[in-house]
């Protein structure tokens, strides 16, 4: 395999390109979070700033949405995990014909578009509510409940797949052995099958929670008048591109990376070969313990937060602003020479305005497609945004 021919390099080269596609957009987004330009971009680079994070902390809508999302996430986990587990166990115990039929039904929610699930959930509970003459405040119309129901529909299927791959490796004679030794069927379930499923329950919980947190297609229908982190984020993105969204991404990416690093450390730490390496080096053993790694990362994250809070880029941004004013002045003078009439920048431009705030002069007020943004118009908006 170790030929020095150029063709041997192709897989590596391809993987590099592929991962560039995977990570490139994210890296660029992260960079834009630290540029003081009011439009998220890498160039022209204005000032290094951490102000966008401050703007996030003050964004009540986003924080309220985040609170709802966490609540919904917990609710979804509590409902979807028992359902997924029950479905997987049922599939493992029924005959082949019934299993095939049930599997098709169970798997369907993954394939049905999220939009359809959201819609049908909304209509169904609306109908039920009408049937019982329930007041509008009842849970039939409550965005949080509806979203939990809607998301559970397909997240239960995801968790079922996780459980199914685990239960396929379960040795059913273990249950029989427990029964034979006097355990009741329920005892056999609790003492033999459940402990075996425990790791899968852990990973399914994480998966379900993350899937709930990031879901948009279903949630956007079922959330009704409330909001989640994702729907707030989506309206933010649709109504105006702003580097504070990049700042959100930075935070999420940081959390993700920390999680991934700890996970990977734990895996390496638990390998047999590493156990041999650290067997006689207690210092190394402590240093590479996932707990230690977590603490170090936590301290680093805290340091980053402190830095973000204390970093002051006002001097630089003021300078940039001054330069822009000068440039603008010049442009306006030129324009007034060319045309007698000119557009005066709008006095206020709300950040979450209904029609693309940054799209200055967008003609079609459609909420579905953003118009193309132009840097010139952005420049004129800058003073008003601050």
């Amino acid at each position, binding site marked *: 395999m170790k030929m020095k021919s150029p063709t041997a390099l192709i897989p590596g080269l391809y993987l590099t390109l592929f991962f560039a596609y995977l990570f490139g957009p994210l890296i660029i987004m992260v960079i834009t979070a630290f540029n003081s330009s009011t439009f998220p971009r890498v160039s022209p680079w204005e000032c290094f700033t951490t102000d966008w994070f401050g703007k996030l902390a003050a964004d009540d809508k986003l924080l309220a949405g985040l609170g709802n999302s966490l609540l919904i996430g917990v609710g979804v986990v509590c409902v979807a995990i028992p359902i997924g587990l029950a479905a997987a166990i049922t599939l493992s115990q029924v005959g082949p014909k019934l299993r095939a039929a049930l599997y098709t039904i169970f798997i369907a929610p993954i394939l049905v578009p999220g939009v359809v699930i959201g819609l*049908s959930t909304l209509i169904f509970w609306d109908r039920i509510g009408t049937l019982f003459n329930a007041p509008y405040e009842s849970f039939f119309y409550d965005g949080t409940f509806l979203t939990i129901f809607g998301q559970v529909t397909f997240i239960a299927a995801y968790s079922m797949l996780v459980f199914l791959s685990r239960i396929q490796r379960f040795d059913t004679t273990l249950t029989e052995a427990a029964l034979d030794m006097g355990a009741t069927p329920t005892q056999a379930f609790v003492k033999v099958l459940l402990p075996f499923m425990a790791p899968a329950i852990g990973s399914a919980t994480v998966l379900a929670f993350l899937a709930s947190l990031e879901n948009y297609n279903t949630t956007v229908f079922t959330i009704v008048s409330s909001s989640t982190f994702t729907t707030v984020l989506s309206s933010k993105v649709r109504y105006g591109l702003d580097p504070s969204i990049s700042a959100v991404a930075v935070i999420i990416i940081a959390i993700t990376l920390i999680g991934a690093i700890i996970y990977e450390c734990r895996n390496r730490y638990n390998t047999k070969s590493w156990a041999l390496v650290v067997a006689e080096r207690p210092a190394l053993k402590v240093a590479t313990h996932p707990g230690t790694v977590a603490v170090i990362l936590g301290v680093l994250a805290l340091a980053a937060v402190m830095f973000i809070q204390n970093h002051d880029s006002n001097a630089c941004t003021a300078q940039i602003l001054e330069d822009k004013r000068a440039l603008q002045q010049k442009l306006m003078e030129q324009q007034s020479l060319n045309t007698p009439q000119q557009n005066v920048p709008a006095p206020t431009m709300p950040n979450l305005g209904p029609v693309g705030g940054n799209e200055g002069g967008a003609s079609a007020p459609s909420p579905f497609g953003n118009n193309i943004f132009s840097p010139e118009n952005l420049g004129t908006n800058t003073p008003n945004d601050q």
Partner: protein
Amino acid sequence: MRDLFYDLVRRNGMAVSIYLMLAVSLWVFILIILPQLTMLDYSFRFNLPPAKIGGPEDVYTLEQYRYFFQGSGASDGLNTLDIGILFKTLLAAVFVTIFDLIICYPVAFVLAKSSTGAKARLLVLALIVPYWINEILRAFAFRILFGATGVINETGMGLGLWDTPIDFIRQDVALYAGLAYAYILLMIFPLYNAIESLDRNQIEAARDMGANWWQVHAKVVIPYAKPGIASGMTMVFMLTSGALAAPQILGGPSNLWFTQLVYQWFNSGGNWPRGSAYAMVLLIVCIALVLLVMRLFKVSIGEIKQ
């Protein structure tokens, strides 16, 4: 049903069996089947104010479906706008699916057959990590990337490849790139699982018997990985055609995705029955397409896995 329950009780005891039956039937009936049936029912009704629901005017009608085919105008004209959007959506979804298959197959193959142990695990982790990040943010990243002052335009103009910013958003390039990006994982993992279980000896035997590299793939690996390919393609196609976030964020101003029509009828249009009818059209057309392709390639739905 009764025999089934007795069998469950014998195996699991009464308490556990009740939990199993209850959880599964709640899911299947309350969360899956009844909502879909209600939506189907709704799509055959007029859009009435709440007061008139259940009244004499609340009768079944094909009006909502007729609208999809013929529009609001005269009865003979076709609703070319909406039908066009459906076709464009499906076509784009097929395009995205094939694109994903082409770029993911080599990655899955390398991952499954050339990497081992820690390296493979790290690569898999690197694949998953981007997908822990919110899909809205992923779409937003592409918006930044492909914007008029985005990195691509700046680089292109900096290198002198083009003079004025190219409008990638209006050209839908950003949308396709973003959609393909969004569902890469759902393509890679079924492929990876399928290829991984292929005995390496089969590949080596084929090489030994004189097959060149593309014959190995065409005659050994791909036929073996067919169920994985089918499930990956099905997932990507269904999710792409049902996507809403990416088209909303990355779609050009004049380019609607079919799900956006459903959203429009529901939210701004306030016409739930029509929204339901459009959703049914999307669902049925997508399923029919998937089943058709599966029949063509002789794969069964039971082989769909994640």
